[in-house]
């Protein structure tokens, strides 16, 4: 049950923001950090999913933004050259015409991640982080 204390940093307390392009509101975004004491490579993310107000966000509507790049969730497992520094916030953009209503929202984030140096006897430690927070949309 190692590493569980790091879940405290997983979902950042920042406001949820709507994403606008000129007059159009095309979605919203919030931030997460990698729940560990050190950084990882995106390829070590074996699963990542989100629920907002109890509703699962379809994976094709989620863009994971880090290091000035944008990743589809299905791409993460292949990005072995992309490092997620433990103090860097990744922005989770959700594509949704009209965005999100202002006020409180429940955000759940689920992460399954491989700890890449733990191949002690041939198998890697895979950890789950499952965290729910109440965030405020602007």
């Amino acid at each position, binding site marked *: 049950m*190692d590493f569980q204390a790091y879940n405290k940093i997983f979902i950042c307390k920042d406001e949820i923001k709507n994403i606008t392009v000129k007059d159009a509101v095309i979605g919203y975004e919030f931030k997460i950090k990698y729940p560990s*004491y050190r950084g990882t490579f995106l*390829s070590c993310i074996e699963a990542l999913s989100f629920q907002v107000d109890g509703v699962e966000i379809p994976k094709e509507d989620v863009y994971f933004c880090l290091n000035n790049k944008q990743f589809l969730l299905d791409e993460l497992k292949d990005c*072995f050259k992309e490092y997620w520094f433990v103090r860097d916030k990744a922005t989770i953009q959700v594509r949704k015409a009209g965005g999100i209503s202002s006020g409180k929202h429940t955000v759940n984030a689920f992460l399954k991640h491989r700890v890449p140096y733990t*191949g002690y006897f041939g198998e890697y430690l895979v950890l789950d982080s499952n965290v729910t927070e109440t965030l405020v949309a602007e």
Partner: protein
Amino acid sequence: MSDIKFGITLYSFSTEYIHEKLDLEGVLRKARDMGYKGVEIIPAQMAPEYPYLSDEWINELKGLLDKYELEPICWSAYIDMGIRSDRDLTEEEIIQYTVNDMIYAKKAGFQMVRTQHAISPAIFRKMIPYCKQLDMKLTIEMHHPHHPEVEVWKEYFEIMKGEGKGYLGYVIDFSIYQTMPHQLYLNQALEFGCRPDKLEEIIALHQKKEDTSLKIAAAEQGDFNEIEKHTALEMFGKFSAPAKISQIKDTIDCCFYIHGKFYYLDNDDHDPCIPFEELMKELRDLGYKGYIASEYEGHHFDYTVDSEEQLRHFIALNTKLLEA
């Protein structure tokens, strides 16, 4: 009196670092303020550009070490064998990461890189020319669940005592001597659903002098819920085969550095988990001359514990033991 010095791995301040209470300069200042002279850094934790570090960042680190008059002791590298989803790292890749770490460490003023056992004896041996070229030591950490009886370590010691003499060595991590779960682990077990009386029962079972298989059978047949069973099995699995302190003498000549690992110290006097009393006596008697890094690791379990207080207990306890 002994030649043993206490250093610190900045990893001890993981809680403060990841919660953004202290940045790189902050942890270095804190280490200096606490009286430490020598430091270890984990670039995979504190270098934003990891794993490819620019001269700018390295010079920034070097400047901070100078500013706080801290000696760079150990650069802790990883063998992230499982980076890729489709396969393990290749030999070429492991060499690339390791040589890079040696180069960055050298540039930052360190004389030693710590790596991990997954490097393999073949690649470890191939690092000798790089060690010589750069005048750098390369060490492998022996961390739980490894211990001197693990087959591959016989080969490692042979290389360290043979062709790699003086350049290749190892780092003892006190996790290999742990006999009991620490308090933060037990607190977490309660929080996750172990009943207090059942947890006591499991600890008593763990401490019984009998074969582990019998304990496991008892845990599986006992009146325990799922989390209690999990806790019992994890406890018996992790803490039933500590390394023998009497073996340290066989390889002390290869031991360039030590991780003074601890998880939770309630006071300055004793830790029920790791036998510091015997360890300090043995290391002093063997004439170990290097650094022991204070390595607080309770941050895996509880982010509310004050790392500085823990480190003060560690130094007080072990200084007392060394001077005894």
